[in-house]
């Protein structure tokens, strides 16, 4: 009996390991190959050496990546665009959720329903009309002391940021979380003479760390990974994000070592900003049913 149980749990562990191997082998292959010259990548392919950093190991591919594409610029653009989207997203969405959750605002039910209704529209259906629409929108910039108006947002930073700040799912997450914070706190703060914004900033938000972290990750992930949108709206090289950079590697002779180096670079950069532990805590909250 005991032996049988042991056998069963060993079997389960074997299945676990099998799944782990399948999940990990392409990524290990990518990281390892990024350190090898092309010739060796193909040479190692038929043996386990494909997954081991052995032989002629160097960071040459990484150096070559920075020669071939403006990788530093792309990384900087992506970091900037994602960071601004995340920061503004947290502020705008939590502010909205705060009013919807904790204030007696007339008509808020209708507004909340309308916000949640946006969840049924997949972004892909909006993308193409949106390209046309942002090209009609006005924008102004300060040029010295004069305010200059221009039409069309194509090929700018704001077109990569502003459409993605407000997000119904983020508002929903904040709303759910705010509901769990006792409302008596607000009343106590009000008796002490705090205004609504002060309650938001000094009472509710400091208690909402987990919700903020979740929203930060859920906003960062698509911002960093965005591909379809910048492909269509950004043409200038100096404004492009990292994912578009992959196109540069398929002109003329492809060096797979460099491709793997670039892929590793833009992947590891993002892993480092979202450790697995934060992913687990973020997904621990129950999803919208």
């Amino acid at each position: 009996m005991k032996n049988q149980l042991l056998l069963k749990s060993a079997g389960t562990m074997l299945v676990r390991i099998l799944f782990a191997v399948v999940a990990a082998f392409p990524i290990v292959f990518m990281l390892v190959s990024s350190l090898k010259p092309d010739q060796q990548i193909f040479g190692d392919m038929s043996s386990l050496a494909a997954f081991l950093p052995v032989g002629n190991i160097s960071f040459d591919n990484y150096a070559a990546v920075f020669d071939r594409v403006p990788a530093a610029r792309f990384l900087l653009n992506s970091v900037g665009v994602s960071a601004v989207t995340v920061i503004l997203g947290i502020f705008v969405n939590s502010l909205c959720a705060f009013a919807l959750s904790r204030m007696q605002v007339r008509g808020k039910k209708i507004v909340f329903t309308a916000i949640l209704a946006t969840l049924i529209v997949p972004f892909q259906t909006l993308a193409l009309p949106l390209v046309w629409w942002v090209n009609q929108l006005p924008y102004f910039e300060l040029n010295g002391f004069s305010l200059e108006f221009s039409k069309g947002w194509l090929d700018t930073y704001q077109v990569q940021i502003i459409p993605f700040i407000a997000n119904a799912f983020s508002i929903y997450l904040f709303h759910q979380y705010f509901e769990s914070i006792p409302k008596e706190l607000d009343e106590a703060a009000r008796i002490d003479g705090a205004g609504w914004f002060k309650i938001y900033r000094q009472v509710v938000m400091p208690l909402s760390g987990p919700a903020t972290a979740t929203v930060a990750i859920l906003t960062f992930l698509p911002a960093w990974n965005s591909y379809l949108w910048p492909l269509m709206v950004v043409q200038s090289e100096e404004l492009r994000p990292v994912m578009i950079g992959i196109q540069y590697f398929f002109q003329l002779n492809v060096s797979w070592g460099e491709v793997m180096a670039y892929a590793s670079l833009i992947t590891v950069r993002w892993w480092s900003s979202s450790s697995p532990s934060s992913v687990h805590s973020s997904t621990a909250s129950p999803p919208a049913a």
Partner: protein
Amino acid sequence: MATDLPTRPRPAAPEAALPPSNTDGKARRAHRRPGFRREQLSGWGMIAPAALLLLTFIFIPAILGFGLAFTNARLISPRPVEFVGLDNFARLFSDPTFYRALLNVAYFTVVIVPVQSGLALVMALLINKKFRGVNFFRTVYFLPVVTSMVVVSLLWLFMYRKDGLINEILSAVSFGLIDGPDWLGDPNTAMPAIIILSIWQAAGFHMIIWLAGLQGISGELYEASQLDGTSRWQQFRYVTWPGLFHTRSLVLVTITIQALGLFDQISVMTQGGPMDSTTTIIYEAVQSGYRQQETSYASAISLVFFVLVLIVSAVQRHLTREKD
């Protein structure tokens, strides 16, 4: 002081939302807490930024997309936009590539939905209970999810070559018996190849959703079933599976919508080829809307896509409701 502030127009505030009122205005005001008006003003001030952004970048484009589909609008064009009726749809429904795209997406979705949700559930069950090293396995299972689909596509593009890693592994495992195909170059294997990598990338995400559902099932139910001497399978069939009812429909809907919108992998790996065997609805929409700058035609495709998503999710809701 606060009551002197002018009332701002509130577009969405209906009269019915007022507190239950007497006909006398003064008596009604007496029901309001002090600071009522101030609360309205600050409240709307706080809602406004998000509401305006959603209005500008979701509601308006959605309505625009609907409208543009019936015009001849181009992304950049000196000519004024004209109404052309159903011309775009007539052209769309007589385009064999569009039918091919529909068929490809149907194929992709029909395979992805059961296989990916099933594998994700198996993964969730494997790491549901605490054991030594559980965090290691959770992290590894989640690695593909935090790797962008573009990077994943790039990586698998390399592995799917005729002399690539996948064929080398197949050959090694079969002691040289299997001589793998040129996965992405052959119309028969291109779509299955894309299906495999898509499952590999996204299963971990749905594993997390399943896991949240599994953790929500009370441990007492398992204890009770153990006292009754149920087998593992019976436990799954009569405790776990019914307990996952809500999670199930969530997983189903998210995978389906994701599958119908297939784009990134196609754009990086095959550009719809070979011989249109991997083209999709969204890929066609992007091709016409962006490369050929035909906003109106692309809007028509998007509209058809949206209707398709609505129908499929409505059918799914109906089916999952009927069963239990």
